[in-house]
């Protein structure tokens, strides 16, 4: 089920090579390499503590890798700060539907524009561009439009997930890192979020790295799957092939 775009493009949109990262004395990623094809969905799976979240953090600059490369369109950006990574086109949506509850829905979306060129920059977007970006977000996520002046604290779990994805999209990324977007959501809402992820990759050409506990759901929509265990890649294959590998599923994916 790999997309045509992914097969045509020889260099992946995002590649990670031999990445080592951790916290204090703990090595959470021990030489991980993955590559995410342009406009494809790459699912990163594995048990708790496998290093999935750490992988996203090391890519987006939330933690500094101790070794290895993070290649974006061929350029090594390992060790850049999150502020720089989002400007380079990598948007990271952390787990837990992390809206800023003290801000309104619209303010949360405007936070997503903070990576746009600003100050005295020549490319500084005009006011109408900002409004157009908001309208686009509201057009895609209708429930947010109705609540734009409400505090994000008042949103439901599903609406919060919409808002954090919308905030990431407002930054106009090329690569979207999604950490457990379905966690804590009702099954119906979970399905909507998965549909959205597919739509973003197929229709908008976003390269998506999807970290999920829900391995079955993630593999159903992914083009490619990577299985991590204790900070190492134990399998990397076509999503359909991974889903068909009964031994691997039982051993690492729990279904």
């Amino acid at each position: 089920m790999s997309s045509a775009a992914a097969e045509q493009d020889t260099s992946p949109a995002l590649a990670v090579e031999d990445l080592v990262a951790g916290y204090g004395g703990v090595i959470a990623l021990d030489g991980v390499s993955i590559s995410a094809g342009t406009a494809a969905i790459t699912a990163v799976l594995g048990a708790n503590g496998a290093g999935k979240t750490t992988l996203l953090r090391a890519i987006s600059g939330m933690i500094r890798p101790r070794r290895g490369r993070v290649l974006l369109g061929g350029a090594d950006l390992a060790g850049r700060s999150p502020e720089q990574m989002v400007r380079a086109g990598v948007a990271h949506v952390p787990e837990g539907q992390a809206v800023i509850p003290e801000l309104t829905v619209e303010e949360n979306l405007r936070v997503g524009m903070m990576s746009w060129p600003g100050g005295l920059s020549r490319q500084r977007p005009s006011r109408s561009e900002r409004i157009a970006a908001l309208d686009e977000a509201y057009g895609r996520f209708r429930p947010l439009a109705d609540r734009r002046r409400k505090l994000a604290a008042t949103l439901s779990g599903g609406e919060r997930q919409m808002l954090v994805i919308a905030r990431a999209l407002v930054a106009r990324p090329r690569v979207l890192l999604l950490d457990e977007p379905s966690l804590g959501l009702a099954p119906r809402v979970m399905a909507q979020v998965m549909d959205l992820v597919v739509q973003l990759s197929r229709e908008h050409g976003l390269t998506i790295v999807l970290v999920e506990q829900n391995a079955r759901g993630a593999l159903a929509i992914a083009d490619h799957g990577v299985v991590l265990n204790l900070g190492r890649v134990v399998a990397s294959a076509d999503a359909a092939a991974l889903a068909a590998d009964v031994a691997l599923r039982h051993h690492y994916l729990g279904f």
Partner: protein
Amino acid sequence: MVEFLQFTLSGVSFGMIYAAIALSLVLIWRGTRLVNFAQGAMAMFTTYVAIEVIYRTGSYWTGFAAALAAGAVLGAVCQLTVIRPTINKPPFNAVIVTIGLLILIEGLAGIFFGGQYRAFPTAFSQTGLRIGGTPLGVSRYDVFVAAAVLVATLVLAAAFRYTSAGLRMRAAAFNATIARLSGIRVARVLTVGWALAGLLGALAGVLVSPSTFLYPNSMDTIFVYGFTAAVIGGLDSPLGAIVGGLLLGLALSYSGGYLHNGSNLVPVVALVILVVVLMVRPDGLFSATQVRRV
């Protein structure tokens, strides 16, 4: 009744100064969860800048502007040089650094400006206003003090609420991780926060000094009152800082006026208020009740 009015108006005037200090503490607290114990000393230093400029230029307003500018610069410089290295270190490190700053700045003020008490000029008359023959207990200057802090607060509040820079500061204060992932340069935002806090502190210093004289320790008591006001307000809430400042100003004014030997008891009253508030509402009167930390 006249007496009550006098104490009230004078309480509001001093309360606004405590509110300015409290607001400067809140600005820094929200960004970094740090109480800047050097805030008063920084304000004292910039007030010396004001007095030197006033004596050289003969213009109160030039000195006033110089103090505010110096406050912003001093705040930013302190943050960049000694506070930034403490970020991501145990929180106590930064506290010790601000106490070190306090000692350093007061020492430098003594070296540069001398230790003697100096009178600070005012822009407006400090003689009491009267309605009919009745003294109100406030002067034109007191009105200016209250108005200046009010204007500064409103401008700041509007900037926070309606500008992109304000949104950056709020986002960085509420959730630094999300802010950084969204492209906000949080380190820079924190420096700006210190600059604004320095500016507000400088405002308080210039406004209060005609009533206290200026010397290297002159802002210590004011800082304690400002800190008390900030704690009453919950340290997290700009509105709480203003209300806390006013409540404290009024309480101290009434106790100084009505209690026997009251003026000597004022610091004790402040302490009692602080302790009572911390016992009854440990997070302050204006603490957000919703859970913010996960």
